[in-house]
């Protein structure tokens, strides 16, 4: 008898607990009558590419919180579902299926790496779910898949910028070393494609293991070819190791890096060896020195100061790619005035002049990236800081 009473009391309490939020929420429900938008994000928050995924996840959390506090997108609150893929393509694939089939998200932001993005490109296309990749390889949007977009600048632009800078510096014979990731291989292909038309000879091109901790061997080989400059194209922390190893080997020719170098942590990791590294990059890292009338200035300074004050760490261009993905999605929903998948997708494809961290996006049915050659700036490292390269 006594026991039954106790059970009944517990049940009453539990039911009460379960019901009370419904009543509490009723008031808000009326205020935001529109259905929330579900946005998935597959990011390498931990694991080998966490230096990409962690700032991306932080950026999205910050943006979504801010957007929701300001009334959401077009009155829709945003529900962000972040999945940590740990840079594994297998995990990215299963999360993609989960987000499309179970969560039925409007769009997926990410993945962080090119390999993962390529692994889920077809799944998103078949599942007719918008994918806004934060990875760099050009193959993600070339050939174009109607539902797949990407926010970082194209590899080919980076290669062209590097070669144009070399021409100005009078460099004609170079060595190329790349990491064995999707990004590295893609970069090698672009470098080899654009070198001849810029009159540059690639004397040696080598691919190294992404997890390599010492690259003096391969650099010795590069040194022996008598090159005038070295290009390293990788997304792995090997970027700092290449710089250090070159100085240790007494190689004093210029070192060019890809746009994957856009994180001040690499400069800190390479210390004095980072001085003079030249690389193409978006303007986020030099936001403070941009002229006041530059169209990106206000957005870049706002993102940088908000991110840095909230998380107490330096902003990187990678978080910016997630920022741009969210900005594009937001602009598209507002433009479409609907949250129907097909309407939003069509709206993205016709977005013009959207200001993002990487540049100004002019997306079209044939260009699912939308950034131009001018979205890059050549930067260099001076006294441990990124500055615009004076040519």
């Amino acid at each position, binding site marked *: 008898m006594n026991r039954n009473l106790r059970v009944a009391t517990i049940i009453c309490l539990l039911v009460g607990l379960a019901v009370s939020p419904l009543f509490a929420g009723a008031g808000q429900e009326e205020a935001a009558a529109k259905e929330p938008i579900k946005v998935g994000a597959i990011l390498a928050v931990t694991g080998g590419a966490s230096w990409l995924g962690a700032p991306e996840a932080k950026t999205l959390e910050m943006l979504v919180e801010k957007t929701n506090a300001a009334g959401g997108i077009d009155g829709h609150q945003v529900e962000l579902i972040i999945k940590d893929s740990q840079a594994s393509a297998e995990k990215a694939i299963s999360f993609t299926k989960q987000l499309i089939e179970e969560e039925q998200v409007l769009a997926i932001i990410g993945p962080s790496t090119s390999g993962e993005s390529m692994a889920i490109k077809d799944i998103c296309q078949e599942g007719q779910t918008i994918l806004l990749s934060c990875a760099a390889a050009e193959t993600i949007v070339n050939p174009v898949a109607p539902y797949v977009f990407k926010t970082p600048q194209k590899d080919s632009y980076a290669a062209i910028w590097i070669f144009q800078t070399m021409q100005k510096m009078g460099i004609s014979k170079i060595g190329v070393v790349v990491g064995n990731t999707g990004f590295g291989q893609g970069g090698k292909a672009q470098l080899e494609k654009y070198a001849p038309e810029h009159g540059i000879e690639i004397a040696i091109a080598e691919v190294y293991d992404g997890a390599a901790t*010492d690259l003096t061997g391969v650099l010795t080989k590069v040194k022996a070819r008598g090159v005038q400059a070295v290009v390293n194209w990788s997304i792995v922390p090997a970027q700092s190791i290449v710089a250090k190893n070159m100085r240790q080997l007494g190689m004093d020719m210029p070192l060019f890096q890809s746009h994957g170098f856009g994180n001040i942590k690499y400069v800190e990791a390479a210390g004095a060896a980072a001085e003079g590294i030249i690389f193409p990059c978006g303007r986020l890292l030099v936001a403070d020195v941009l002229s006041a009338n530059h169209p990106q200035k206000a957005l870049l300074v706002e993102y940088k100061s908000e991110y840095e004050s909230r998380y107490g760490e330096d902003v990187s261009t990678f978080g910016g790619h997630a920022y741009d993905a969210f900005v594009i999605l937001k602009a598209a929903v507002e433009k479409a005035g609907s949250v129907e998948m097909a309407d939003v997708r069509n709206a993205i494809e016709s977005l013009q002049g959207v200001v993002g961290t990487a540049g100004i996006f002019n997306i079209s049915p044939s260009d699912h990236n939308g950034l131009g050659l001018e979205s890059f700036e050549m930067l260099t490292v001076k006294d441990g800081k990124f500055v615009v390269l004076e040519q």
Partner: protein
Amino acid sequence: MSFEQFFQYFLSGLTTGSIYAIIAIGFNIIYNTTGIINFAQGEFLILGGMIGISLSSFLPLPLAIAAAVVVTMGVGAIIDFLFIKWLKGPSVLRLVIITIGLSILIRESMLHIWDEKVRTLRHFTGSEISSVKILGAHISPQVLWVLGISAVIVVALNLFFRLTLVGRAMRACSDNRTAARLCGIRATQMVTFSFMLSAAIGALAGCAISPLTQTQYAMGAPLAIKGFTVAILGGLGSITAAVVAGLLLGLLEAFSIAVLPLAYIDAVSIVVLLVILFFRPSGLFGNREASSLKEF
């Protein structure tokens, strides 16, 4: 190939080899007492490096490294106390699985205590750009430090295991635990010692290689795999052999780069490892008879 180039490949082989060697040493200590491979050795390495880097921001470098070694040693002792000590006559397989589990535990804890970022310790002498010129070829002074520290560790450990009572007791536990206990050796205590010692050496190695390889929470496993390969190549249990095998593997890789595309580097080292193990299953310098008596 000119002499200078040849010598440069040689030095670059030494650089890689010195890293392999110093990692491989740690594997042998726990193996020598317990007969198991501690798969969390790579994590000791990174843990030591991380602590060293954090402390070096406000402590002088030698003090920071010493503190990192002591703290990691403590972690080694705690691990033994919590996970190993209470096991009654555990099988080798069970211990191996436990150490693999521990490696994941330490790795994830490091992710939470620090973060996902790549860090690096200051160079012991000079900086990232200093290089020592020997016979027309260049090498980082840090490599000389790593080689020097490896040499000191090898000499000290050899003396310790041969001459001191504790060292001999640890070896006895490895040879025959029951017999050792009958002789009055407290086997569980020796295992604790070996975990502490191997954690300490891991931490020292982690600090020494950090300026070269950099340090990140997830880097332990790939480094440990190379170290493990080298320990097997040299012959498990011998510390001197580990260093020699590490340098050999480093040189082999460097010279394979000289003639083959870089992509083949791991294929070359694995093929050599397989060939050596095929003809000498107990490793390059291992004693065939002794290793046949071991469980693992």
